[in-house]
């Protein structure tokens, strides 16, 4: 469904992505793992249309989307939940979610998704009129995911959703990823928590300083000696 071919990203003199290629098939969970600074966020940001300084092909359902704006990308059915949650602290939970649905105009469908999201995250429902900034870290992460879901995406890109969360909450995040995948949404997951990500992923890629060095099914990478050595603590 999403195909990336020979994607390059430059920041000034830094060559952050050196021609990566990857595929995200419909209905799958694909994960991109790698150390800090490997280029994971840059990959997602390039897909989301945030980067101007990129080269290569990004094809979505057969059409090239590499020149599109972030708004077009969201309308095309791809949403990105950025690293560090980036919820709007001064807006209420409800407003954060409405913002997620900004690109849509069908009010009835939005209301239906809002109900669904509140069902999925009952804690957000209780706090719907609270400012986003008053939520706990875990709740903020739920809000960031819920907000992304409000765009009714076909592909959800999550950038390190488990970052900085207590172990129990990390588990919850991964069970939510499974849940949204069960709902038929395709997931492209970026993680430093390699083990959990590989467990949930159908397909996985390892990124090292801008180059994809390994790929395979999640299970095969968990079994791979090089991955165990570098990312799973031996």
């Amino acid at each position, binding site marked *: 469904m999403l195909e990336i071919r020979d994607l390059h990203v430059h920041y000034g003199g830094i060559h952050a992505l050196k021609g990566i290629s990857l595929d995200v098939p419909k209905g799958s969970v694909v994960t991109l793992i790698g150390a800090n600074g490997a280029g994971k966020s840059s990959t997602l940001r390039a897909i*989301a*249309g*945030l980067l101007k300084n990129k080269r290569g092909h990004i094809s979505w359902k057969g059409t090239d989307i590499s020149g599109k*704006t*972030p*708004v077009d990308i*969201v*309308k095309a059915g791809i*949403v*990105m*939940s*950025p690293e560090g949650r*980036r919820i*709007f*602290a*001064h*807006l209420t939970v409800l*407003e954060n979610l*409405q*913002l*997620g649905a*900004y*690109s849509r105009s069908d009010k009835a469908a939005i209301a239906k998704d809002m109900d669904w999201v509140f069902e999925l995250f009952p804690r957000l429902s209780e706090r719907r009129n609270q400012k986003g900034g008053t939520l706990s870290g875990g709740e903020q992460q739920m809000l960031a995911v819920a*907000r992304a879901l409000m*765009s009714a995406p076909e592909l959800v890109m999550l950038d390190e959703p488990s970052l900085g969360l207590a172990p129990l909450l990390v588990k919850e995040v991964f069970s939510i990823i499974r849940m949204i995948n069960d709902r038929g949404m395709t997931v492209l997951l970026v993680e430093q928590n390699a083990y959990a990500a590989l467990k949930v992923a159908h397909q996985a890629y390892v990124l090292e300083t801008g180059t994809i060095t390994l790929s395979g099914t999640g299970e095969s990478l968990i079994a791979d000696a090089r991955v165990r050595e570098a990312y799973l603590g031996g």
Partner: protein
Amino acid sequence: MNSAMFIQHMLNSLTLGSLYALVAIGYTMVYGILRLINFAHSEMFMLGAYFVFWGITLGQLPWPVAMALAIAVTASLGVLVDQVAYRPLRDAPRISALISSIGVSFFLQNVAIVFFQAIPREVYRPQWLEDPIITHGVRILPLTLFVPFLSLLFMLVLLWIVYRTKAGLGMRAISKDIETSYLMGVPVNRIIALTFGIGTALAAASGIMWALRYPQLQPMMGTIPGFKAFIAAVFGGIGSIPGAVIGGLALGFIEIMTVAFFPDLAGYRDAFAFVLLIMVLMFKPTGLMGERLEDKV
């Protein structure tokens, strides 16, 4: 001072204060979203007033029509200025857009001198704004009721847009985090254009009403009120719309009341605002309603 005079001073304060507030809102909205102090804003104030003058003299339009039209034309011009002079600099260091706005400000002033000529012009005032109402010994100029009333109306519309509409939600989101707003599908450039349009419309409205209050037009007429409105925005806490309103009203009040109670100081009335600015920057740089500034400036 008797109470009749006090009421008159209060109404004058309210009139002047709401004129400052309308201009301050434009400064604060643009700053809130782009962290840009738009120096060309005070020229929009001037242009709005001149466009009404044109509408009435050249276009033979009735005054309310000329006012509505002038606001619309000035607002479009505000959007155009952003597109031409600031938008190409979005990714440049912030100082670039600031300098560009100073350039636009001088440019518009000079264009105004060429087109409108530097001689001050008399402004047409509808008679019903001038015939004083006298009740209980209080002499009230309808203008001092009309200006605050119309300003309040404009502000309510503004608050409705910002807090009750989808575009307003987009504005509030952009003002905190443009990139994430983009990711959520907010058409950032369109919302910025809308912000310039609204802010400029309010400045034009203020300039038009200013010309009724101090019935003279000249190409530099925006400079001092513009500076004061900017100070009002800083005083209220730049970036905050309620802050701009409170700051504007407070400045109008301070100016009128100081002159009323200390007539000897009347010659310094333009200096009060700057003293206030210095005090705010020294003692409460974030202003009355302002937030932390570290991530803004």
